């Protein structure tokens, strides 16, 4: 009897121990999880801080970016006081009664006249000292108007139109041609296919500089410099990266689907249009996005081909020139930079699934 009781007690004890152990493990796991997530949050915070800097910088007032003693982080403006119809700076004035915030109405090297905005009836107060050593009074002020000013100065709608035209016209050709060529490589047997595909791959890693000069020379001779043609036309002849990505995807489409279409009497073109293309929609979307953003971010091409056609410049080149013109106006430069990032970021957030799949297809499946 006692033996059984003992055993029961033992069992309870073990179960209890086990339970406690499990609870402890679970706690450790949760702590670890919280730790890792917190560490990642910190890294992410630091990683994205420049973006915050950009936004904050874009909202600063002109005074703030030009005065050396202005607040460094929070967008601010100088406090002013209107006295007898004129606007005066409010300064921090040290007096016997502590620091006063007074508006300076008359500046002289050794003394200045001030007005106390809280008590303007008291009239002008004379203060002995160098006003130049006094700090301004700042208040938090977000200058959203910078976005409008920068937009108008850089003529953003024109840059946007140019970039969109270049990206759309070139992406259309790139996706269409690569879709066709990849079909040829994925579904047909012919001599030298392996060799030709190796060349396709080689063109991916070929530094563009090596073909650039003769190409540029020809474009120059036929009058294509300062037009969009050199940026758009070559895209219609399928580039290696897109061919590779689409071919990888086509290879994953079951051949039975082709065969079924063939039995129904579909030729190669019909099979391509009715079987392959609909199946490859995710990959086609990825290629479209990649190429679109490649154009959106292309810099070297527009820089050399649109060398003196300022009205045709896309965003990246326009932004660079804007920076050269208004180096000191960092608030404008930041607002222009942030504005030019908005469209890619919005598209990215909506299409990120295709985007990330596409990246993975190119790199891992190889």
């Amino acid at each position: 009897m006692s033996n059984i009781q003992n055993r029961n007690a033992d069992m309870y004890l073990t179960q209890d121990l086990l339970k406690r152990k499990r609870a402890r493990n679970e706690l450790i796991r949760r702590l670890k999880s919280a730790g890792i997530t917190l560490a990642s949050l910190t890294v992410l915070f630091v990683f994205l801080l420049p973006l915050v800097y950009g936004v904050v910088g874009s909202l600063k007032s002109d005074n703030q970016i030009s005065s050396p003693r202005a607040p460094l982080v929070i967008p601010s403006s100088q406090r002013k006081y209107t006295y007898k119809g004129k606007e005066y700076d409010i300064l921090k004035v040290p007096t016997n009664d502590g620091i006063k915030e007074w508006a300076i109405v008359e500046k002289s090297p050794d003394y200045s006249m001030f007005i106390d905005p809280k008590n303007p009836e008291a009239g002008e107060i004379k203060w002995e000292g160098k006003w130049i050593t006094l700090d301004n009074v700042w208040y938090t002020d977000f200058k959203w108007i910078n976005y409008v000013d920068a937009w108008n100065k850089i003529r953003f709608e024109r840059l946007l139109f140019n970039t969109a035209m270049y990206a759309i016209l070139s992406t259309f050709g790139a996706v269409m041609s690569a879709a066709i060529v990849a079909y040829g490589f994925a579904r047909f047997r012919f001599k030298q296919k392996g060799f030709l595909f190796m060349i396709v791959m080689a063109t991916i890693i070929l530094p563009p500089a090596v073909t650039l000069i003769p190409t540029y020379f020809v474009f120059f001779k036929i009058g294509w410099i300062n037009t969009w043609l050199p940026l758009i036309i070559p895209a219609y002849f399928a580039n290696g990266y897109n061919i590779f990505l689409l071919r990888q995807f086509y290879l994953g489409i079951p051949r039975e689907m082709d065969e079924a279409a063939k039995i129904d009497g579909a030729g190669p073109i019909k099979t391509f249009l009715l079987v392959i293309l609909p199946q490859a929609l995710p990959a086609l979307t990825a290629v479209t996005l990649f190429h679109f953003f490649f154009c959106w971010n292309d810099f070297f091409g527009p820089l050399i081909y649109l060398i003196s056609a300022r009205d045709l410049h896309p965003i990246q080149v326009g932004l660079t020139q804007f920076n050269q013109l208004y180096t000191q106006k960092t608030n404008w430069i930041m607002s222009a930079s942030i504005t030019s990032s908005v469209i890619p970021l919005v598209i990215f957030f909506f299409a990120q699934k295709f985007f990330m799949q596409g990246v993975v297809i190119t790199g891992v499946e190889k």
Partner: protein
Amino acid sequence: MNQSITITDVKLKHLDLAKHEARWGLIFISPWIVGFLLFYLFPMIASIGFTMMNINLGNTEETRFIGIENWKRALTGGDTKILESIINISRFALLSLPIGMGFGLFLAILMNSKLMIGKELFRTLFYMPTMIPLAATTLIWTGVFNEYTGWINLFLQNVFGVKAMGVNGVRWLADPNLIYYTYTIMGLWGVGNMMLLLLAGLQKVPTELYEAARVDGAGWWRQLWHITIPMISPIIFYNLTLGVIGIMQYFLVPYILNGGSGYPEGMTYFIMVHFYKQAFTYFNMGYGAVIAWIIFLIALALTGLLFGTANKWVYYAGGTDK
């Protein structure tokens, strides 16, 4: 007798089919063939010709054949900028590629951790800056690195008490000893693609391997070094190859920051900047072609080196074909 005829028939039909298939294949790839000839093969051949010409777009009448003059100038020390710019880009690459890849791997390992909460959101947000146009990225970072008003120096000064701000402070953009670090840090915003690829690789490593290692008493570091890295070495190899070729063409950041002047002290005068200046500022197309070929040959040599040593350090789960 009857039977043999049928076999020949089948064979003939098969041959026809093969021909038919080959013809369609060639039709489909024909846009690429035309493009390859027009934009790759002919220009490459012509490019060799260009290297032997004195050809200036500003004054095409002066064009003449000068043999190997351009090559001589580039290779025998007539143009010291060539060697200088190659050394610069190599030094920058040796710093920036390992740091960039290390950071990508670090993020990928974090995102792959089972313990991480909200993985997908983290992944999206770490990828996000990759989408910002590089010119905007560069301008924003230039502000962050500003010696007087930038947040990095503000942080160093107020948190660590270092006298970081001002002329005698930490001059991220003007100090030749720091400039490659500055550029490297800016480059981290482009880590997205590498992170995704490495992450996809990590997710494919069989968990049994880790379990077996744990049974054998291997700690986290040993698992990383002996399982994770070898298993994802093909992806590291792929990224390294693209990285090496990409960095040879590093141009936009120095162009925006200093217009290609090489500031500070010529440190950022890279080979692609030299190419751009010769070919598209001075329009020396002949000499520019020589620089282009030098870029090509270096990229070729490095790719060759990578592929040549791949079987020593890249692990292919399915065995190597070579």
